[in-house]
């Protein structure tokens, strides 16, 4: 008989406290949501920042290999344009975010009645390469390795147009829309190029057109590559030739900028690929620093979740002393009562954990979109972690207060005092 009464008391206790239970679930959910969001962010931030750092420009340069006698007599070597498509076949092909070839030449320009000898560079503005063995295309071109190029006017989009660097334009008295004679051919100036760098003194034109003028079909002077790379460390700084086969494999399979460069060298015939150290080294350091910072964010997340869940603990058992006493008075054993409250704690933890995880998906998406214009990767593996932590913390918070209340004498609690 007492058993039935006990169960009824328990049921009433649970139902009466619906509002309190909901509040507890919300507290647990809030803490879990923030913790899970920040954890998700900390796991992916490195990739996002790495992609941002590509805005600083190419971090690998591929030149023709010049050695020995060839160097001394300054034999002009070139790379093969057809090798460019092979860049997306290396092990680290998915890390290649930008790629563009350059062909350098000097030519005679006649403009505004004067003739001068100028530097010309041929490149791709924007070109979609087929991906070998896959559907889809890869966007290459100078826009992918030098996003800071600013054009006063427009990018050339038809044949017979060129870009003129602002400094050169001033020197020879050119402005956009005008025409000039380059090696006897007529070209229209589609726009003026301002970068602050060497291009300001050059004429930039389409690679294929320059190759045609010069009779250098299929030849290029240099390639710039923009790749997502892992920061260098002591291991990566070692000469790969001194590594054991196992170490070398590890080096190959880590996206160090040196490793990517070496793989690119393999597909470009007669080439020497090197990291552009001022870019590569700086971004490595930046990434390292930010990574550490983000680990801290994850810790802050944990602390925040403790705060959130502690709210649940405190609200949970304040009014329970009376009920616990009642349960004991109708014959409930300590273990039964404890089991009941722990089950409640478990339920709150589960509900709050699930709710919090769902909320964290929105939160981290929102933050990702606001900051990086792309959401953070949602990892299913975080779900059990989030729920597990929520349950653990909820149970931990339930345990001690319940233990204390259960040990207290029923009479005092039933009277409503302390």
């Amino acid at each position, binding site marked *: 008989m007492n058993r039935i009464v006990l169960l009824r008391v328990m049921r009433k206790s649970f139902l009466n406290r619906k509002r309190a239970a909901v509040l507890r679930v919300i507290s647990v959910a809030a803490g879990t949501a*923030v913790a899970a969001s*920040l954890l998700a962010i900390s796991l992916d931030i490195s990739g996002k920042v790495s992609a941002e*750092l590509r805005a*600083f420009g190419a971090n690998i340069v591929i030149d023709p290999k010049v050695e020995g006698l*060839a160097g*001394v007599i300054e034999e002009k070597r070139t790379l093969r344009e057809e090798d460019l498509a092979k860049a997306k076949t290396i092990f680290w092909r998915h890390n290649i975010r930008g790629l563009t070839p350059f062909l350098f030449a000097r030519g005679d320009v006649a403009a505004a009645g004067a003739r001068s000898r100028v530097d010309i560079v041929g490149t791709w503005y924007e070109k979609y390469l087929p991906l070998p063995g896959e559907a889809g295309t890869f966007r290459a071109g100078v826009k992918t390795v030098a996003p800071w190029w600013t054009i006063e006017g427009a990018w050339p989009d038809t044949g017979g147009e060129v870009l003129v660097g602002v400094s050169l334009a001033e020197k020879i008295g050119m402005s956009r829309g005008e025409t000039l004679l380059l090696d006897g051919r007529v070209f229209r100036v589609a726009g003026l190029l301002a970068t602050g760098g060497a291009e300001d003194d050059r004429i930039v034109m389409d690679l294929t057109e320059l190759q045609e003028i010069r009779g250098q079909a299929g030849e290029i002077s240099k390639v710039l590559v923009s790749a997502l790379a892992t920061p260098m460390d002591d291991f990566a700084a070692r000469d790969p030739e001194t590594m054991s086969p196992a170490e070398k494999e590890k080096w190959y399979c880590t996206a160090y900028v040196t490793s990517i460069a070496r793989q690119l060298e393999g597909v470009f015939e007669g080439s020497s690929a090197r990291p552009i150290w001022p870019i590569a080294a700086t971004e490595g350091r930046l990434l390292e620093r930010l990574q550490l*910072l983000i680990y801290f964010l994850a810790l802050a997340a944990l602390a925040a979740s403790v*705060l959130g869940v*502690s709210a649940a603990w405190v*609200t949970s058992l304040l009014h329970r002393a009376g009920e616990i006493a009642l349960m004991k008075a109708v014959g409930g054993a300590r273990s039964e009562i404890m089991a009941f409250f722990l089950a409640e704690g478990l339920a709150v933890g589960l509900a709050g954990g699930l709710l919090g995880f769902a909320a964290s998906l929105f939160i981290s998406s929102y933050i990702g979109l606001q900051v990086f214009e792309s959401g953070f990767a949602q990892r299913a593996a975080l779900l059990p972690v989030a729920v597990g932590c929520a349950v653990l913390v909820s149970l931990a918070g339930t345990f001690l207060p319940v233990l204390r209340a259960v040990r207290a004498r029923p009479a005092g609690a039933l009277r409503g005092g302390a």
Partner: protein
Amino acid sequence: MRRRGRRAFLRFLARSLAVRKGRTALAWASVSLAVGLLAVMTQITLGIREKLGAELRAYGANIIVARENLSDGSVAAIRAIPDVEEADGQVYARLRAGGRGVEAVGLDLQLLAAGGALIEGRLPAAPGEVLAGSRLREALDLTAGRVVAVECGGRRARLLVTGFIERGGEEDRALFLSPANARSLAGRPAGVSAVLVRARPGEVEAVGARIRAILPGASVKTLRQVAGAEENLLRKIRLLLLLATAAVLLVSALGVASSVGASLLERRVEVGLMMAMGATRREIARFFRAEAALVGLAGGLGGFLIAGPVADAISRAAFETDLASSPLVLPASLAAGLALSTFASLLPLQKGLAVDPAAVLRGE
């Protein structure tokens, strides 16, 4: 309040806090943790521009100034402009070596070495020593220790190659030496060919305008490669930290509200007792608000004490420098603790005061 009344009030307050040590401690801990967390995150968010900025400096100059006759004084003048982090003069000379034209750049060699390039050998130290770009190794058949004969505008010189530098750009075909050396080769008595300036990210345009004002006729170009990307990156990181701080703030507030608020709710019996003893609602409210304020201030202090070493530890771990501590942190922490505690107790206080003393004393 009469003086006697005030003393009684304070005594009551102190005893009340002492008697429920456990609850008070929990509330205090909750406020401390919340304030501490907020303080650390705020300090990091505010300091990130400076910290990352220091790292971004390695990307180098974002403005280049050139003019026919730039004096050494103009470099100093540029350095004096606010928001200029660095300004370094460079002297250019066009040499002939091995039958071909080679650029020589005279600049601060220590800076060159710090710029992230790969250096083999040692930096030039004595007059007549140079650092060669790595591509010249093949082009001029050079090795470290070899002497290369150069000629410039009729002047001849023999330069000792002390090492090689690789940056991955066109500079790999240049020779690097001290400005004084470059000047003597070029036959310039003094002055520089160009000044490479690093302005604080975000102030590049403004600094450019100031330079144009003090050096009329100079070409002042923004190195867009660096300038735009930096500002963008800093902006994004700051936004990220801001949003994360906001999220943590919300959860902290919830936690504190629960802790502080709940402890008020359970004291209905006390409230009933006070009413039965003749205290007015206002006096009771004042009493509880004072309690909340005390806990809030103490929590703010606790949070400040935690936040200091923690923020420093993070700063040192991530950036190898200390956070610049501001005198505002302590008052801000105290204020935050006070605010959190006060707001947390508003609603529970209202509810707690709406008691029927007789019913509560009876134990209902």
